[in-house]
């Protein structure tokens, strides 16, 4: 369990990092390393160049402006969990304790989680439920992508190979906003067997599932049902057939389909409470 040979770079600025990302060969960006390092040790990932982002100071940190919270990609879960801004991000606050274990949260980063797009991870689904905006940069410039368009498949995102996720914009919660979150896991800190994050605001309802498909997924038909009538939960659960359920070691697609209904029911109870 030793990684294959790789070259290692530790840029100090974002420009240096982007220049390195634009280089030749297979390049991997190292954020918290909680997924990448095990994959390298298993030699599933064999990058030729590892670009360590941990010294790029301007990628971390949290700012707020006009009702939007901008979280730097290298902000670690544990730093976020202690941040005052969580008062305006109650859904994030609700989800963070479910992310793995303290030692992993001490290293893992928000940007790393979104860029990896593990279908079982909590924060990509939270980003989807909040309607987050993902900021990307490369030597060609910067752009931003809605979370709805960012997650494209199993470990697949809209991020180009030479791009880095630089920050994530999340809308600060309004006074009227309600939210729900529920996941079921075999053991505390495990990837969930199934989970859901959802927000209800004046402008609509967003329901995002994780660990039920090949990516974090919206349940738009269920959103429509519940937006029109919050009491029609059974109908909303029926509408989850829209999701392309995929199995894992915890169970097959039928199990995922069943658990999606269970977690939605429990999260919706939180919303109504």
């Amino acid at each position, binding site marked *: 369990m030793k990684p294959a040979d790789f070259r290692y770079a530790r840029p100090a600025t974002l420009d240096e990092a982007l220049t390195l990302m634009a280089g030749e060969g297979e390049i991997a960006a190292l954020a918290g390393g909680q997924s990448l390092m095990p994959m390298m040790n*298993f030699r599933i990932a064999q990058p030729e160049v590892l670009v360590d982002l941990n010294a790029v100071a301007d990628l971390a940190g949290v700012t707020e402006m006009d009702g939007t919270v901008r979280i730097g990609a290298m902000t670690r879960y544990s730093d976020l969990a202690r941040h005052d801004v969580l008062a305006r991000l109650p859904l994030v606050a609700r989800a963070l304790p479910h992310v793995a274990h303290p030692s992993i949260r001490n290293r893992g980063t928000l940007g790393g989680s979104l860029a990896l797009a593990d279908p079982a991870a909590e924060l990509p689904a939270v980003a989807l439920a909040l309607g987050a905006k993902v900021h990307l940069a490369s030597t060609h410039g910067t752009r931003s992508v809605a979370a709805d368009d960012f997650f494209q498949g199993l470990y697949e995102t809209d991020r180009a190979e030479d791009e880095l996720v630089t920050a994530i914009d999340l809308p600060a919660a309004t006074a009227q906003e309600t939210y729900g979150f529920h996941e079921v896991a075999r*053991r505390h800190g495990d990837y969930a067997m199934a989970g859901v994050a959802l927000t209800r605001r004046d402008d609509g309802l967003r329901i995002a599932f994780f660990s039920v498909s090949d990516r974090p997924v919206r349940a738009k038909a269920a959103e429509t049902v519940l937006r029109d009538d919050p009491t029609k939960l059974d109908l909303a659960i029926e509408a989850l057939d829209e999701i392309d359920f995929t199995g894992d*070691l915890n169970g097959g697609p039928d*199990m995922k389909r*069943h658990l999606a209904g269970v977690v939605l029911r429990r999260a919706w109870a939180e919303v109504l409470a």
Partner: protein
Amino acid sequence: MTGPALIFDKPNAYIGQSTPRADTNRLLEGRGRFVDDIQLPRMLHAAFLRSPYAHAEIRGLDTSAAKAAPGVVRVLTGADLEGVVEPYVGVLTHLKGLRSAPQMPLAVDRARWQGEPLAMVLARSRAEAEDAAALIEADLDPIPAACDAETALDPDAPVIHPEFGSNLAWERLVDVGDVDAAFARDDVQVVSRTLRFGRHTGVTLETRAAVAEYDPSEDRLTFHYSGQAPHMMQFIFAKHLGLAEENVRVVANDVGGSFGIKIHTYGDEVATAAAAKLLGRPVKFVADRYESFLSDIHARDHVVEARMAVDKAGKIVALDFDDLTGIGPYSMYPRTSAIEANQVLNLTGAPYDLENYRARGRVVFQNKNMMCQYRAVGHPIAMAICDGLLEDAAAKIGMDVVEMRRVNLMRDDSYPRASASGMKLDDLSHQKALNVLVETMGYDALRAEQAELRARGVYRGIGFVSMVEVTNPSPMFYGIGGAPIASQDGATVRLDAGGGLRVSSSVTEQGQGTNAILAQIAAGVFGVPIERVTVTTGDTDTVPYGGGTWASRGAGIGGEAMLQAAHALKEQVLEVAAVMLQSDAATLDIQNGSVVDGSGARMTLSDLARTVYYRGNELPSDLKPELIATRHYRVTDFPFVFTNGAMAAHVEVDTETGLVKVLNFWAVEDCGRVINPKLVDEQVRGGVVQGIGGALYEECIYSEDGQLMNATMADYLVPMAVEMPDIVVRHVETPTKTSVLGAKGAGEAGTGGAPAAVMNAVNDALRPLGATLWQMPMTPERILKALGKV
């Protein structure tokens, strides 16, 4: 057995006290000395290329690129070890008919499980060795595999060892009484179930590890390893590497857990020793977690068709089952992989009065990692079969499960006697243990609460097990069948000039506290403060000859040898003291490091020893002081010393998610005399946690083509602290009459009993919903399927 009866009542008799372990500070301060801490001059590091297929013809292994890689000193394949290592075969003569094929440390011609070592790279560093291993071009031709034990005996199944004609390794039938007539009675009710027990494994904190060094000038091999049976390994290396037995030294210093994983002959470890001999350089191999999952022995993997007949009074009239177990492609050397099935046949129903008993066990080869003895060998299967069916039958006839046990348990005053399978039993306390359990858990109140919660849609269950545990094995376990495994153990106690005791023992310490109880026994029996005792275990050069630690024998056998040696030394010392003090030895005692008589301390042990060692001229010339004593002990008259226990689990099943929460667990254990209550309690608790692991979490999940799908700590679910309940432990102490110490084993009861108790509790919760589940681990998906929700 008679002996020094007063040893348990002396002022500093440590036996029975929760004395802190002497090695705690050393380990907690990072001063432990584990195999990977060993750094030797010119040492090479080994990495293995392992088969990616469950079954494949090896057409060729092109090692030229690997040999040319940076830092590489040598690359060895199976062919390179032919003539260097004598093949080994995992059979024993007392398991009649057991067959297995000759095995080599690195596969030759054919690979038979995913993870079997094919080639070994020796390099300056492990990283360089792994880089080079990735450069070996293996020309492998995958061939049809027999992975599923349930179909491995089918006529069209691929035969793993063609010379055998089938994949059957061993078969045994026990048939007592008239089972068919009992089932045919018209006054009995019958329950029948198919029970499935998944594969799981030991997951030791310290993985398997070895450092081998060979000195050609003396033809001497020193093998440092993380293991439990140094003298057994000494024999194995001598025999299979062509060395004189006395020229092999096996050392096991600190060991980070074993659970039975580390008492077997592993190809990668044999290859490590062989490479050291071939190259004349030290070689280190430390299994990483991935190769641990692929190569550490797995356990269980049973399918059991079982039925039980009971009469209206709840009396078990007959028990009949057929057990099929998959053991991988070979029987493990030298203990064999048939012992677990043998135990299942021996132990099932052993707590109960049972006249009609029939059991068939079949052991089959399959293309998966090898299965062998792991903590509580066979016990979880045996207990789940009988106690699972007992509670199922109780539900069928509408009888309380405790009441039904009271009808069937062997009476505490009925020993000595035998079980239906012929096991000799003595000094057991099933009835008393069950009474203590029921009282401790507040059974009636729990049942009332359960009924009340059910009415509100909360599904809780209570499940029991009454169990036996095999401990303190005699030569009947292995030695009788030709295995190089000692069943006797030895202890040496030496009084040094400073008045301290240096003791050594052939049992081993792997984290469970054996060294601590050996010190307690030596200090208490001989008469010194425990701080003055230094314990050495795990070195074939220095400790007496013995079997090591397995089958819960460290305290019962190693402890008794220590007791006898300490007592013998005491008598020798008092003989000297009597001469020096001009007293009668019968009036003297040793307490707190001094020779005492009725008036108090007369002489310190240091004064006595210094006189003997430095100034022997002061002693009469006909006095020949011996300040060292060695004694050995083995169990006679019984094949094993059985213990018993009663346990109960209280669970809540979330019927929507299928998740099971274990709310409480109670264990009442009778391991005879308790030497150190805290250590025994932690053995029971740790065992229960492993049992809960087997019941709810742990499973080596294989694909249909024999790929292990969850060989990581993220995907293989070991039980974690957050999910574990408080585990209440109580003791009934019925000392065994086979020794003065009276201690039986305690190491495996929790692992053996907890799965049945948890399974029974889950089924107790599910029954009102018309569901039951008979497959472990009881995963959420399986529970939801049983409930018809998925």
